[in-house]
């Protein structure tokens, strides 16, 4: 690591931090320096130690050894209170807002502005919130209840809230994960703006493109250690360097799929309407095909799939499967027909985290076994086969899935549908929150499934993923299928311009 001339501008210095969890060395001799007003990006695979390091800075974890020097003062460990009073603020991925309260109330929750009667001063609360909103040049009404805001609106509230603490150090954990392309740009500008005010920003993201755009420095974590720090990377920085450092070997910049032969149409959606006034949705899916569904967050992609899978009611429409019309009123119906859904939110809807790999794998396909009684030995053997096939890294099939990494958890979800032996798989954001290496493994599995004759529908916000994997892409906007792209038409420019409505494909609005 570089030696600096002066230590004056070092806000945070972490020296030789180590932290061990039962069975895992989470951090090993990590040293890290944060300078005043810089945007310091941290990258690394899931499990590389980023989150653990952040939790040590926020005081929610105590390091086993090492020293933290913050504003020139040395600490063995922090507490959440101490961390806050040192001016450290974190914006987490998860929602930490109270949905029923307004934006302003959320911003000052726990530190309510009081009038001289000791009651909450709403006017002042709103005024102060408005000031912060104005300074960020974003569009947000302090009096709107948070639950009425879009997901990206809620993300902005989190940023406003953290700034209300007047932090010296702002830690952002995947702040753009919830945003669509347009808002991402806005968030990145916000981050730059914040750092210009002299606030030091630690920025964690899996999206390498945005990191190269904003980073003053990039530190790469791997297996609990800092493997490299890059000074002033700039826009032309070679991202494959980062990827190489993160995974310890050079991965192809992006996964390349082998094209396979695509069969006849197996699945057809005709005139599907979700609401009385919504447009009709028509599309087909062929045997061995990967059909990508592109669209901005909020474009109606997920709603379409929910209705198809039977989670939400639909007004009208027909679903045809292998030449027969099928009726789907519940997930049960679609699963029986041979459709499996891999949801976007593994933790909320994809897994029972406290249950074992075995139980999570067989739950949808218990009826593969005859009779009401389970043969646990057979079940274990079956699941072990999937563990091996999908290369799920788990110490035992009895391990609770919450102890697995994101990538391995996703493989367990996938194993569930392979065990159930469905023919159509719907992936909603197949690699969300998964590290680079596991992503490639998931892509490989998806490709193999298609080669074996399964049909895949994939909703994704990650364009490289859509482009690399899809045989065909349909672009959704405002609940309507705007266009269908084949082969060479599947390009980043095409998808973006359709998704934003720049290219209208000749259709007029209703």
């Amino acid at each position, binding site marked *: 690591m570089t030696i600096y001339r002066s230590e004056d501008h070092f806000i945070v210095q972490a020296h030789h931090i180590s932290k061990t969890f039962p*069975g895992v*060395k989470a951090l090993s001799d990590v040293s890290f320096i944060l300078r005043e007003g810089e945007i310091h990006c941290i990258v690394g695979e899931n499990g590389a130690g980023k989150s653990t390091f952040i939790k040590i800075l926020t005081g929610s974890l105590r390091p086993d050894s090492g020293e933290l020097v913050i504003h020139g003062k040395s600490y063995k460990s922090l507490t959440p209170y101490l961390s806050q009073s040192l001016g450290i603020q974190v914006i987490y991925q998860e929602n930490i807002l109270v949905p029923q309260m307004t934006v302003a109330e959320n911003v000052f929750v726990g530190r309510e502005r009081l009038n001289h009667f000791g009651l909450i001063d709403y006017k002042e609360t709103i005024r102060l919130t408005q000031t912060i909103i104005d300074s960020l040049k974003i569009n947000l009404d302090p009096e709107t209840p948070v639950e009425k805001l879009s997901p990206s609106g809620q993300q902005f509230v989190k940023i406003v809230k953290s700034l209300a603490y007047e932090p010296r150090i702002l830690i952002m954990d995947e702040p753009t994960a919830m945003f669509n392309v347009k808002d991402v740009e806005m968030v990145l500008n916000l981050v730059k703006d914040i750092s210009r005010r002299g606030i030091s920003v630690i920025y964690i993201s899996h999206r390498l493109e945005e990191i190269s755009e904003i980073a003053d420095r990039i530190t790469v974590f791997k*297996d609990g250690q800092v493997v490299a720090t890059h000074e002033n990377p700039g826009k032309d920085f070679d991202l494959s360097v980062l990827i190489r450092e993160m995974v310890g070997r050079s991965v192809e910049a992006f996964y390349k799929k082998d094209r396979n032969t695509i069969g006849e149409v197996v699945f057809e959606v005709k005139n599907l309407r979700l609401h009385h006034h919504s447009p009709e949705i028509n599309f087909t899916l062929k045997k061995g095909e990967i059909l990508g569904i592109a669209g901005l967050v909020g474009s109606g992609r997920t709603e379409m799939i929910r209705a198809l899978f039977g989670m939400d009611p639909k007004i009208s429409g027909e679903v045809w499967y292998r030449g027969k019309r099928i009726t789907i009123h519940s997930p049960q119906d679609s699963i*029986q027909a041979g459709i499996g859904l891999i949801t976007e939110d593994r933790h909320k*809807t994809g897994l*029972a985290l406290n249950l074992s790999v075995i139980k999570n794998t067989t739950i949808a396909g*218990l009826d593969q076994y005859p009779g009401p009684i389970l043969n646990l030995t057979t079940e274990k053997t079956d699941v072990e086969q999937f563990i091996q096939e999908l290369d799920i890294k788990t110490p035992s099939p009895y391990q609770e899935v919450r102890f697995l990494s994101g990538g391995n958890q996703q493989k367990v979800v996938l194993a569930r549908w392979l065990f159930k032996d469905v023919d159509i798989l719907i992936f909603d954001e197949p690699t969300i929150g998964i590290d680079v290496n596991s992503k490639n493994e998931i892509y490989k599995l998806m490709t193999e499934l298609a080669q074996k004759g399964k049909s895949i529908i994939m909703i994704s916000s990650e364009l490289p993923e859509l482009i690399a994997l899809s045989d065909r892409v349909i672009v959704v906007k405002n609940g309507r299928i705007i266009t269908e792209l084949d082969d060479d038409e599947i390009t980043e420019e095409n998808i973006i311009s359709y998704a934003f409505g720049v290219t209208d494909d000749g259709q007029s609005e209703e």
Partner: protein
Amino acid sequence: MMDNPKSDGQLKKKTAGLPAFLRNQTFFLLIVIVLLSIVFGSINPRFLTWRNLLAVFQQITVLGIATMAMALLLISGGIDLSIGSMIGLSSVVICTLIMRGSNVGLAIFIGFGIPVFCGFINGVIVSKSKCVPLIVTLGMNYVYYGLALVISQGLFLSMKGNFQFLGRGRVFGVPMPMIIVIVMVFATHFLLTYTKYGRRLVAMGGNEQLAYLSGINVDRLKIMNYTLSGAIIGLASLVLVSRLGNVLANAGEGYELRTLAAAIIGGVTFEGGRGTIAGTFLGVILLGIVQNGLNILNVSSYFQTLAVGIIIVVAVVVSNLEKIRNR
């Protein structure tokens, strides 16, 4: 997971702490029970006599059976706070029918059927209204208790000496209630571990959304499970009236909380998806031993209530220790 040979030694030292078998709540509970028995026995040797231990077992039979119902509900993510009233209502109806000269067999059949029906109603309300089962069944607790009061008019009712076999009979010298509770423990364990039905219950308790998206008809499963629990309560109720011979409307009072306590002590959680029947039954035994032991030591029943309270809180805290330690 992470291959780092240099840090290996350090790693082992750090993870040592408690050996794995001690972190297992069921095993921990077993040790507590043995230690408590030794303490009670050394203060008053009468505690550790075969006769007394048999009496402990006898005392916990109704609780043991009813706790199986509570465990099934908790593990599936539900709860039923009306089981005490269900027992009361069923007992009262049986006695009323018998006192009015009805056929004993028919009275027993109806008495068993009532909790089954109550459970079914609870299940329907919980699953269809999507309300919190805690509140729904708390309300139903009053409904069933009210019905029992109306039917009994608050009077002591008698079985008139009928139907003693289930509560007082013996088979090969073994008391019937003991046989029933042991059979129920094994049956419930089998149901939860080795059947598709049980597996689906566990999954629903672990994550209801997941269960729904995996094609499980969660509403139907809930109704079935509440009904089944009602049947288990029906059995508990039959054992109770058979043993007591005469009852008041509040015959089952307190069972809703004591079954809950036993299950929680045994490692079942409020959130669902966790816990074993073995642990649950040890929880029942612990409650029985504490009550009997304190009786033998001549501790007033007021203190016993206090002791049970402390045990519950300690059990919950102990089962949560792992989370705290991971900080």
